[in-house]
């Protein structure tokens, strides 16, 4: 295993754990984007550029949009 892969793996493990342990939804949404980025890097060093791209667009666009919209909706609650 090359050092780059080792580093990426450890970062993925660490970031994944942090996401789960972070209980504040907004911070978690941001951490989740970071986690997606570490996965993207890992997939790149695993020679999987297609999956890395897919992870990048999903983690950078799709997740944040739906997560932030849901968080904002839930935060603004009780306004009806």
């Amino acid at each position, binding site marked *: *295993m090359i050092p780059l*892969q*080792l580093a990426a*793996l*450890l970062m*993925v*493990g660490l970031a*994944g*754990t942090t*996401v*789960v*342990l*972070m*209980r504040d*939804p907004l911070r*978690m*949404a941001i951490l*989740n984007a970071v*986690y997606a980025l570490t*996965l993207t890097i*890992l*997939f790149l060093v*695993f*020679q*999987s*550029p*297609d*999956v890395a791209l*897919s*992870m990048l667009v*999903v983690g950078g666009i*799709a*997740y944040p949009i*739906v*997560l932030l919209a*849901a*968080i904002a*909706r*839930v935060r603004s*609650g*009780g306004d*009806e």
Partner: protein
Amino acid sequence: MSYLPYIVAAWLFVVGLYGIVTSRNLIHLAVCLTVTQSSTYVLLLAIGYKHRATAPIFYGVPVGSRAVDPVVQALTLTDVVVSVTVVALILALTVDIHRDAKTVDPDEIEAFRG
């Protein structure tokens, strides 16, 4: 060392489950579900990896070069799409539940007993 990627995958699977079981917020829970699912990406891609091999894209690389497994990558692509859809559905349910119950804590929603 040569099993570390697989161990990380197993770890992510269980950590995600831990998050789901202990979650007090459905949005948090939805993300924990994606962490559990991400373990399968890591596992699949780690399994298909080969040392000193290129990506299975023979663009500027001669055909017949040593390349990693393309099948696991195709499977992971499908897997990523699945995770987006499940998160979207759970978040939609969360928004609805919040409107009706004014809470997003799964332990406080009490529609069923027995």
